[in-house]
C-alpha cells in the first residue's frame, strides 16, 4: 500500500526532475491558475489556487470560506428544536443525515432513547439520504471527467429517492423531521412497497453507472493510480467516510460505535479498497450505495410496530453537560460536540463536518499532478461546499 504511494511519488519526482532540467534550458516560468471560486468543477464556490509548471501542479492551496454561514454562532441564539432546521443545510444533498447526530447528542444529554420504531425509521431515512447524496456523486463524477450522460441518470433516479423522502417528511431537501425523542410523524401508508421498488431501481442505476463509467477503460485510465492517499496520511488529516476506507482503513462509524440506530439489526458489509487512489474512492462509494439499498430493504422488512415518540417534556431544556456524537454521513464522519448549560438552547456547538477535513488534504495530494487530474481528484474526494464552510 505505502509501497504503491511511494512509487507514485517517486515517479512524480522523476517527472519533475526531468521537467526542471528542461525548464533550465527553456527558461520557462510558472503560472498561477485560479480554479474557482466560480468554476464548474468546484460545484459551489471553492477556490483552488494552483501554481503550474506547464500543466503540472507545483503547489496547490484551496481557499474556502466563500459560503461560510457561521452556523456555530447561529446555534447559540437558537433553541434545540430550531437547530435541526439549520443543520440540515450543512450537507444539503443528504440533509436528514445531518440532523441525526445532533438529535442523538441532545438525547444523550437528556438521557432519553427513542423508541425502536423511530430508530428504524431514522436509519431508513439516513440511508435514503446517503443514496440521494452519493447517487449524485456518481453522476457528477461523469461530468467532471467529461461524460455528460451519467449525471442525468443520477438526477433521474435520485428523484425517486427524493420523492420518497418528501412523502415522509414533507421536504425534499430540508426534511427537518427528526425530533428530540422521536420523529415528527410516522411513515405514510404505502411507503414500504414504494420504497422497495425504488431500491430496486437504484440498484439498476448502480449497474448502469458501473457499465457506463466504472467499466469504461478511459475512465479507469483516468482514475487508477491517480491521487493516492496512503492510510497514515488519511488518518493524520482526519479523512473519513469512503475516502478513509478507500485507503484500506476498515473503519465505519455505523458499525464501530454504539448508537441508538438500527444498523446492528441488519446484515451488511463495510467495503474497503487497498489502493487509496481516485478510483478506489469512487468505487467504494458505488459499493456503499448498493449496500445502502440492501440495508433499507432489510430494515423495511423488520420495521417494528409501536410509538414514535419517547416521553419528552413539552418545553425542551437540555441538562448541563457535554456530549459528542458522530455518525457515518454520506460524506464521512459528521459530528456535533454539544455543550449545554441547562438552557433552552445549546451553549456551544462544534460542528465537525466531513468535507472540511477531507478537503484539507488537497495541498498534499495535488502536488505533482496534472491539471486534468486536479479535477478528477477533487471529484473523487467529493466535497459539498456547505459541508466545508458550514
Amino acid at each position, binding site marked *: 500500500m505505502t509501497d504503491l504511494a511511494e512509487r507514485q511519488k517517486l515517479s512524480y519526482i522523476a517527472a519533475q526532475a526531468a521537467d526542471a532540467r528542461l525548464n533550465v534550458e527553456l527558461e520557462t516560468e510558472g503560472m498561477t491558475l485560479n480554479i474557482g471560486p466560480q468554476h464548474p468543477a468546484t460545484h459551489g464556490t471553492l477556490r483552488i489556487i494552483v501554481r503550474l509548471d506547464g500543466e503540472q501542479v507545483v503547489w496547490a492551496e484551496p481557499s474556502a470560506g466563500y459560503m461560510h454561514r457561521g452556523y456555530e454562532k447561529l446555534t447559540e441564539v437558537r433553541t434545540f428544536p430550531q437547530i435541526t*432546521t439549520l443543520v440540515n443545510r450543512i450537507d444539503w444533498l443528504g440533509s436528514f443525515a445531518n440532523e441525526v447526530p445532533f438529535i442523538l447528542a441532545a438525547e444523550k444529554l437528556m438521557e432519553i432513547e427513542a423508541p425502536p420504531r423511530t430508530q428504524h425509521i431514522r436509519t431508513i431515512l439516513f440511508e435514503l439520504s446517503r443514496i440521494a447524496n452519493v447517487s449524485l456523486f456518481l453522476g457528477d463524477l461523469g461530468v467532471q471527467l467529461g461524460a455528460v450522460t451519467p449525471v442525468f441518470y443520477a438526477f433521474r433516479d435520485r428523484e425517486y429517492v427524493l420523492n420518497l423522502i418528501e412523502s415522509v417528511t414533507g421536504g425534499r431537501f430540508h426534511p427537518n423531521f427528526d425530533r428530540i425523542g422521536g420523529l415528527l410523524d410516522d411513515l405514510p*401508508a404505502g411507503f414500504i412497497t414504494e420504497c422497495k421498488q425504488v431500491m430496486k431501481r437504484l440498484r439498476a442505476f448502480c449497474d448502469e453507472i458501473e457499465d457506463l463509467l466504472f467499466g469504461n477503460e478511459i475512465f479507469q485510465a483516468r482514475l487508477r493510480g491517480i491521487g493516492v492517499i496512503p492510510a497514515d496520511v488519511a488518518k493524520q488529516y482526519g479523512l473519513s467516510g469512503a475516502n478513509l476506507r478507500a485507503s484500506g482503513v476498515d473503519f465505519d462509524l455505523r458499525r464501530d460505535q454504539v448508537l441508538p440506530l438500527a444498523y446492528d439489526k441488519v446484515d451488511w458489509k463495510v467495503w474497503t479498497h487497498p489502493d487509496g487512489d481516485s478510483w478506489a474512492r469512487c468505487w467504494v462509494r458505488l459499493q456503499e450505495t448498493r449496500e445502502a439499498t440492501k440495508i433499507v430493504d432489510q430494515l423495511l422488512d423488520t420495521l417494528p410496530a409501536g410509538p*414514535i415518540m419517547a416521553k419528552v417534556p413539552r418545553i425542551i431544556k437540555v441538562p448541563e453537560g457535554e456530549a459528542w456524537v458522530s455518525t457515518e454521513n454520506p460524506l464521512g464522519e459528521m459530528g456535533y460536540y454539544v455543550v449545554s448549560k441547562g438552557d433552552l438552547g445549546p451553549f456551544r456547538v462544534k460542528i465537525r463536518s466531513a468535507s472540511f477535513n477531507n478537503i484539507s488534504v488537497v495541498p498534499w495530494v495535488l502536488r505533482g499532478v496534472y491539471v486534468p487530474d486536479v479535477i478528477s481528484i477533487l471529484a473523487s474526494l467529493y466535497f459539498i461546499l456547505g459541508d466545508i464552510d458550514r
Partner: protein
Amino acid sequence: MGRVRKPQIPGLLKGLAVTARTLAETLKPKKLGGGAVTVQYPHEKETPPIRARGVIGLREENCTVCMLCVRSCPDWCIYIEGHKELAPPRRAGGAPRKVNKLDRFDIDYALCMYCGICVEVCPFEAIFWSPEYEFSEPRIADLLHDMSRLGEWMETVPEAPALEAGAEKKKGK
C-alpha cells in the same frame, strides 16, 4: 461483482449499449411504458405528496393569538397582532367572555425556511401545510402573505395521509 479477470465485453461497448438502451426507452411510446421521465412543466404538472411543505394556510377563527408560532419561528418571519374583545357568553345569563381577536397574521415567505415548526407547535389547529407551490412573485415584497391570502391557501390543505402499518395513532393533528 468480484472482479475476476475473464474475457468480457469491453467497457467502451457496454457504455454505448447503456445510452442506446435509454434512447430506445425514451423513444418507446408512453403507452408501452416508455417515454421520458421529465415532465413538460407548464403543460403538465406533478402532484406533490400530501405532506409536502409548500405553503402555509391559516384558519383564522381557530387562532387565539397565543404567539407560540411567532416565538418558535427560527427565522422571525411571522408577525402577529391581536387585541382582546368581549364576546357574547356561551350560556344564557353568563358573563361576557374575553376573547383574543386576530388583527394581523403575516408570513414573510422571503424569509421562511419551510421548517414547519410553527405548524407543529400550534396547539389550536390554526395553521396547516398545503402542498401548493406556485406562488413565486416578481417582487420580493409580494412574498409577504397577509391574513386573507393565507386564508385562501386553506382551501388547498389536504387530509393527513393514512399511516403505515404498525404506526400508533397520533394525538392532535
